[in-house]
């Protein structure tokens, strides 16, 4: 017998990975929330005038923010997905557990999480398709966006993607607030109501923008 057995091998060494991943999940989420809201506001500039949108788009391309920032946003989205997906059950058994649990509990915040998980899957696919289509077809102009939407397929595409993104982002905003203790018990109800209205406003702005693009005369823009 050479040496004694190292029993310490069975003791799990302390690790900080969970903390780092939780930070990253929150920070990528917060970053994407800010991006999505800014994105909506910028695209909605077409409602003021196609030229306003064109000028903003030109600015982002002339400064290479679209060419560099676009792929960074796509990568952030993927990282955020991988981090948050750690919480989503992968086996049908666990999926059944959370589904039955939500149906039993009649609890809004639990349902909101299921909506977040479901919209995440749709955004992952449709968001990627959207980013690919836009970034491989630069420069962004109001006329090109209008043409895409007026084709019909993309119009419906964005009518689906819009509420998915706004719901996911709005719920995520609320969740970060309560999860990280920024919102206390006393402020939760108010904050929840604010989040609902805020999300509603952004869906409305999005709808108006889609309608505007659908009805925008393409020639001359």
């Amino acid at each position, binding site marked *: 017998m050479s040496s004694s057995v190292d029993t*310490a091998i069975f*003791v799990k*060494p*302390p*690790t*900080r990975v*969970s*903390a*780092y*991943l*939780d*930070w990253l999940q929150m920070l990528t989420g917060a970053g994407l929330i800010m991006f999505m809201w800014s994105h909506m506001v910028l695209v909605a500039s077409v409602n003021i005038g196609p030229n306003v949108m064109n000028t903003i788009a030109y600015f982002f391309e002339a400064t290479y923010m679209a060419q560099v920032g676009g792929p960074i946003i796509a990568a952030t989205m993927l990282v955020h997905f991988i981090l948050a997906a*750690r*919480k989503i*059950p992968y086996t049908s058994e*666990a999926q059944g*557990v*959370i589904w039955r*649990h*939500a149906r*039993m*509990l*009649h*609890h809004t*915040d*639990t349902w*909101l*999480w299921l909506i977040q998980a479901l919209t995440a899957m749709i955004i992952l696919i449709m968001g990627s398709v959207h980013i690919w289509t836009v970034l491989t077809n630069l420069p962004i102009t109001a006329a090109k966006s209008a043409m895409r939407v007026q084709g019909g397929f993309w119009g419906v595409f964005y009518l689906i993607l819009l509420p998915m993104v706004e719901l996911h982002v709005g719920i995520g905003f609320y*969740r970060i607030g*309560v*999860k*990280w*203790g*920024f*919102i*206390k*018990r006393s402020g*939760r109800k108010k904050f929840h109501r604010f989040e609902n209205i805020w999300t509603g406003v952004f869906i409305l702005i999005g709808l108006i923008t889609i309608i505007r693009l659908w009805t925008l005369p393409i020639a001359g823009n």
Partner: protein
Amino acid sequence: MSRQLKFNIFRFNPEDPKSEPHTDTFMLEETPSLTLFIALNKIREEQDPSLMFDFACRMAICGSCGMVINGRPGLACKTLTVELPEEITLMPLPVFKLVGDLSVDTGTWFRQTNTKIESWIHSDQEFDPESVEERMENDLANSIFELERCIECGCCVASCGTANMREDFVGAFALNRISRFIMDPRDKRTDPEYFEVVGTDQGIFGCMGLLACEDVCPRELPLQDQLGILRRKMAFVGLKNIFKPKEKGRHRRF
């Protein structure tokens, strides 16, 4: 004219090989100030003596009578039937081991979890039975007591999405409990030592913030606030030590 209440009650005796999980229906006339605890006792006395459920104190102190009441975990003794519709469905708390019908074994789970998070004051001070008790600021004592009010009924765990999906998640109960020790100056554990206990995905970072615990807690413990404070604290402890080498092995013994 008082209401006729219809009780749908989950029935299953794991000890009996012939028993199949099913629901039994009982009718009971509503009386003034009727609680579920009284109703269940009436049903057992007058209709079915084999009905299993737990109770001890009938005043929301012992935490024995936690059950799922129309979908929501709560205490039978604290729930008045006037607050409920005519049809009342009672199920045992999930997550915990079923003893039979509405009775679950919360004791084993709480014992294990308390052991896991080392739920006691860690001190290297020699105990002197002769000395005067150490003094504490009244405000601090009150805020510790606020969290101490937990009765270990299991409602927060049963209502938690994470705890339902993952067996190893310690739940709001344990996170609240650790917050109580963090506040307590008599506990000599350092932040990195608390981090070792709850700075994991089984601890605070496993919490998804669904806040069902906050919404069902029969004692109305400030779980949302405590979990938020704990997440921030533990997240910063993790970050603060990002460039420090990991300590080997488990934390010091007291």
